[in-house]
Structures are given as C-alpha cells and as structure tokens.
C-alpha cells in the first residue's frame, strides 16, 4: 500500500487526467462490444485481438515511413473488411445460437488470431512513434503526453460520428431496428444478415481505430489483447447495452480507478483490480436482482 497519491495533490490530478484519457480509449473499444452484443447477442472474446491487429496495421505504416496517425484512417477500413470476413466465415453460424456457443467460437478466433499474428509479425514488442511531444500543466507538475490527448480526441470524434451515423443513416436505423427486435425487423424488410455483417464490421473498425491509437500511446504484442477484452466487457457490464453516455462514463471511471489502483496497490495489481471490480459489480447486481425478486414475491 502506498498513499503517496494522496500526499501530493498534483499526483492525484495526474492520475485523474491519465485515467480519463485512457478511459476514453477503453470506452471506444467497449462501445464496439456493446453494439454487437446488443444487436447480435454475441460476446466477442476476440475484441482485444482485433484491437492488436489494428495496432499492427498502424505499426507497419510507421515502419514504411508513413506517420502512424494515418493508421487511424487506414486501420478501420482494413479492419472493417476483416470483421466482415470473420462474420461470413464463423459468426453467422453462431449468431442465433446461445451465448455460450458464441463465446466459445470467439474464444477460438482469439487464439487463432494470437497465433497468426505471432507467426506473421513475430513475438517482438513493438510501438509506433508519433513524436507528438508533451503538454506540461501546473508549472510542469503534471505531464500529459500529447499522444494520449490525441488518442482521446480521436476516440471522441469516432464515437460522435458513429452516434450520428446510427441515428441518421439507413443502415444505422436498420441496425437499431434489428437490435430492438430482429424478427420484426425481418418482417418489415430489413436484411438482418446484412445488418449483422455490417455490425461486426463496424465493431472491428472501431477496434482498428483503438489499436492504431494504442500503438501510438503504448506498446503492442500479439498476446496483449485479452486485457482489452476484459476491460471492455467490464465497461459494458457496468453501463448496460445501448447506453452510450453510460459506456463513456464507465470507461472513464474505469480508467481513473485503474490509475489509482496502480498508485495505491502497485502496478502489478492493475489488471487484478479490474477483475476484482468486475466480480464486485456482478455480485452487487445479483444482490440487487434478488432483492427485486423478493418484492415480486
């Protein structure tokens, strides 16, 4: 236990800002997960691996002399098609089955992706340098890498675009209709098969954006996907499906929680604390549900 974070107020400010910037990025990944969970009732364990794959796209652009920030545009385009391909090959066979089968299927995809990435890109830890510099605040007591600010900004931008797209476009409306009632949507002439494919593609594209941002701010490695899956799962559990402001808030909350856990408990418990929080929330939800059931009795 280390309570340094409370002794120096500037460290608290630093932890909060770091957490919020990080949380916005998590929220973007979680939003993709919530979308496909809501529409297709699929929990995608391979979410984190899609993120890492997106990161590799940005990394390779960087390797060939293109600024990795362009990855934010190129990576989602490629990942969209990767997403559609995965849908056509695997997901469409499990989409109407129960949740357990889809978890197994996406777990398999996750392992496959890890190994393929390891095979294709090697096991080295890599990163893409943006050379964006640093912002100093409060008499340089708080430092924020511009790459983190950039990634939060881009995440917000993509989230806003997506919300508008969902509201205004024909496909967006079809997706929402399918999420509400797939059968009714089908009867009314919505091609649900196409909607599912597009949803999975959009989710993969969001992962692509997030991956590109992660390669700029952190590091990527074929086996680093799972923590991102867990975090987005956690955010969606807290926020609930189809609740975008909720996803954003719980994303930022999780980011700040992680940062403080990092300072107080130590970096080694960072991911562990996320797991712990997940368990606590699930227990709390159960508790609340059982109370409700008692009223009904």
């Amino acid at each position, binding site marked *: 236990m280390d309570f*340094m974070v409370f002794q*120096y107020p500037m*460290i608290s400010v*630093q*932890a909060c800002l*770091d957490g919020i910037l*990080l949380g916005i990025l998590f929220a973007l990944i979680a939003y993709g997960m919530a979308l496909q969970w809501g529409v297709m009732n699929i929990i995608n364990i391979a979410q984190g691996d899609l993120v890492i794959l997106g990161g590799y796209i940005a990394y390779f652009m960087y390797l060939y002399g293109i600024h990795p920030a362009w990855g934010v545009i190129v990576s989602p385009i490629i990942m969209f098609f990767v997403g559609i391909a995965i849908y056509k090959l695997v997901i469409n066979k499990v989409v109407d089955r129960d949740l357990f089968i889809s978890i197994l299927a996406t777990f398999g995809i996750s392992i496959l992706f890890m*190994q393929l990435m*390891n*095979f294709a890109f*090697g*096991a*080295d*830890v*890599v*990163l893409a*340098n943006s050379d964006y510099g*640093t912002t*100093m605040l409060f008499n*340089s007591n708080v*430092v924020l*890498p511009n*790459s983190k600010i950039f990634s939060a900004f881009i995440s917000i931008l993509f989230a806003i675009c997506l919300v508008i797209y969902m509201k205004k476009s024909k496909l967006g409306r079809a997706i929402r209709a399918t999420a509400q009632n797939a059968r009714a949507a089908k009867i009314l002439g919505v091609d649900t098969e196409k909607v599912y494919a597009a949803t999975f593609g959009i989710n993969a594209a969001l992962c692509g954006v997030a991956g590109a941002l*992660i390669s700029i701010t*952190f*590091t990527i*490695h*074929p*086996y*680093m996907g*799972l*923590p991102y899956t867990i975090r987005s799962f956690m955010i969606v559990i807290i926020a609930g499906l189809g609740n975008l402001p909720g996803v954003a808030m719980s994303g930022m909350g999780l980011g700040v929680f992680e*940062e403080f856990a*990092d*300072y107080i408990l*130590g*970096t*080694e*418990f*960072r*991911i*562990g604390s996320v797991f712990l929080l997940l368990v606590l929330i699930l227990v709390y939800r159960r508790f609340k549900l059982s109370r409700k059931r008692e009223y009904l009795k």
Partner: protein
Amino acid sequence: MKINKIIISFISAAVILLSTSVVSFAKVVGDKIVLGAAISLTGKYSSNGVHTQNGYNMAVDRINSMGGVKVGGKTYKFDIIYYDDESNPKRAAQLAERLISQDGVEFMLGPYSSGLTKAIAPVTEKYGVPMVEANGASRSLFTKGYKYLFAVLAPANLYLDVAIDLAVEKNNGKPVTVAMAFEQDAFSQDVRLGVLDAIKRTGSKKVIDDKLPKELNDMAATLVKVKQMKPDVLVVSGHTKGALTAIRQISEMKVDVPMLAMTHCDAAKLSKQHGKNSQYALCASQWHKTLTYKDDFFKDGMTYDADFTKEFGYAPPYQAAESSAALLVFKDAFERANSFDQKKVRDALAATNMQTFYGNIKFASGGQNVDKPMVLFQVMCDDGGKCENKVVAPTKWASAKLIHPIPSWSQR
C-alpha cells in the same frame, strides 16, 4: 463389435508404443554426435528462440567445417535435433523426455529463457544427460544442486548490480538513492535480488520498489513517483516490453534521472525503435562485439558479428553469441573426455576452463559460469540521430566513457 474395436485400438496403441521404444538408439551414429534441443520457434519467445537456434547452427557449421570433434582418434561432426516447444514449459519438458527416451539423444543443448530451462533441467538430471545451456540465467537454476546442468552465461543477479556500484562510484563513494521497477517473473526478480544486494553492500537506499505486471504497457504511475522522489538511479527490468515502455514514457513524461539502467535493450532494438530518446540508457549485456576475448573458431567478437550478419542478415544479439559458445564448450569437453560416456563428459564439462570469443568459461559447482563478468553499455547517439551501444563498464572492457549524469530533457 464394440469390444472388437476396443481390443484393436488397444493393440495398435501398444504396438505403436513398443515400436517407438524399440527404435531408440544411442545418438552417436557413424561420424555424427547428435545433440537435442527444444527451442521456442513459435509462441511468445519465438524471436529469441530463433536467435538461439541461429547461434547453435552457426557454431555447428563452423566446428564441422573446421575439422569437427576428435574423440578416440576419430573425427565426428555435430548434428542437432530441434523441436519447437511453443514457448511452453510443459511442452518443453515433454520434448526433453521425447528427445532422450525416444530419439535416444545423450547430450542436450538448452532452450531459450530461464523458465523453460527450469522445466527441462529436472528431466535431463533424471536421465543423467549433460546439458549445456546458454539462455537460462535465473539464480534458482544453480541452487538446486543439478549435476548435469552447465550455463555459459552469468547468473541473473549479476545483471545490474554493476550499475549501482557505478552510481556510487560517480557519487564519490557515497551511497545513492535507487528507484526500482521489476517484472514479476523468475528472471527479473533475480535481477532485483542482485540489485538489492548491491544496495545493501553500498549502504544505499531504495526509495521506490515497484513490481510490473506481465501484461505491462503503462508504467506512468512508477514514473510519476520517480519525478517526485528524484532518485539517483532508476533500474528497470521487464524484458523487451519493460525496456520499450520505460523509454517511451520517460521521454514523453520528461522524467529526469541521473542514471537509468535496464535489461534487454538489444533484444528490444531500443536504439532502432526509439532513436535518440533511448540515448544515455545503460544496459546490462552478457556480451558485446567489442570485447576482446578470442578463440580459434570465431576469432573474436567483431569477426563473429560480421560472419553472423553475413549469414543471417542481422547483427547478432548476445542470445545468439552465447548459444554459439555452448557448442564450443561441448566440443572442448568431448575432446578432453575422449569418450562419449555421459558421466565422463559431465566431469569434463565440470572441469571446463577455456576462453571463447564470448568470454571465459569456467563452471562453479552449481553449473553457472563464474569467469565472465557482465558488461554495461550505454546508448550513445551522434547529432545525425544514429545510435550505437558502447561498453562503459567494467572499465577493463570500456570502449567509451560513461556519460553521467544524464542531461535533463530541457537541455537535450
């Protein structure tokens, strides 16, 4: 019908089992000495696994082309059976069993990493198979009383204690304050123990002692603490991702620290991935091409570097160099034992006292090499942004003078 099927499958299983055990034969065949190795060709250690394999292959080719191994008046050539252990300790142990009991291998080369060596060592020990390993540095390997394990490299606890001594020396012999961040795996924790010993020995003080997780990609919290506490030395060890993450975030957060010491810089291709931001970092290394050790096969470090680069298209990291050295040790031991009796070869290995291009090799009773110090190099960049690793400690091998303290970010 069903019972018939069961009987048939039982019999065929028994036949397969028998046939494999009948096929096994001792692995000095004709003029070939067949060594066995489980190497991580896939999985998370695959890049270092490949360096290891390249190092082994380079030495096999070189020794074979330069006359091979002379035992009992006859000349033998080396050959290696490789299996892919998938970076998985359980698999590595299984493969060691298979190499020994099915393929009949009588002498083994080590895998990559301390963890996998730990998994294999009990197997080779059980069968009395001498193993020369080049990539398992964890101290715990050498305290178990293994009789058949020999490591050509220096143990992990010696990686970074030199850095603390150096900092004290630069501080006019006065104790220093140390911030530490170590991953929680066997290797990094051994490095940590070595640093703790050095801190105690010099009367220094540790001000931060953080543990890094396996899935590390953010150590901002540790670095904020470093900014606050202003230690004299920051020590980081967390494999390649530790080195990469540290340099990225130290440069982004403009953390000023007089001395930064790390492990795995060359495996992380630090100067290539980070350019000038990695400047002044001190790195522990088992080997560097500018060291002036010599042998008859590879001549010296510079020649090895050139030959390896020519053959494999990249400069050899120390993981490759130490792997090549393992073969030289085996050759020497076979010739001194003048026999393929495992016990005699084991005794000859234990009595090894030789110099290779990689360093002097002499084994302590635990099997670790006690005759080769670690070196520290510092990343130094010219104005054009081209960076090079230059040995700065120990002074005997230094090719450049240590730059200390590291200039602050505002002056860079």
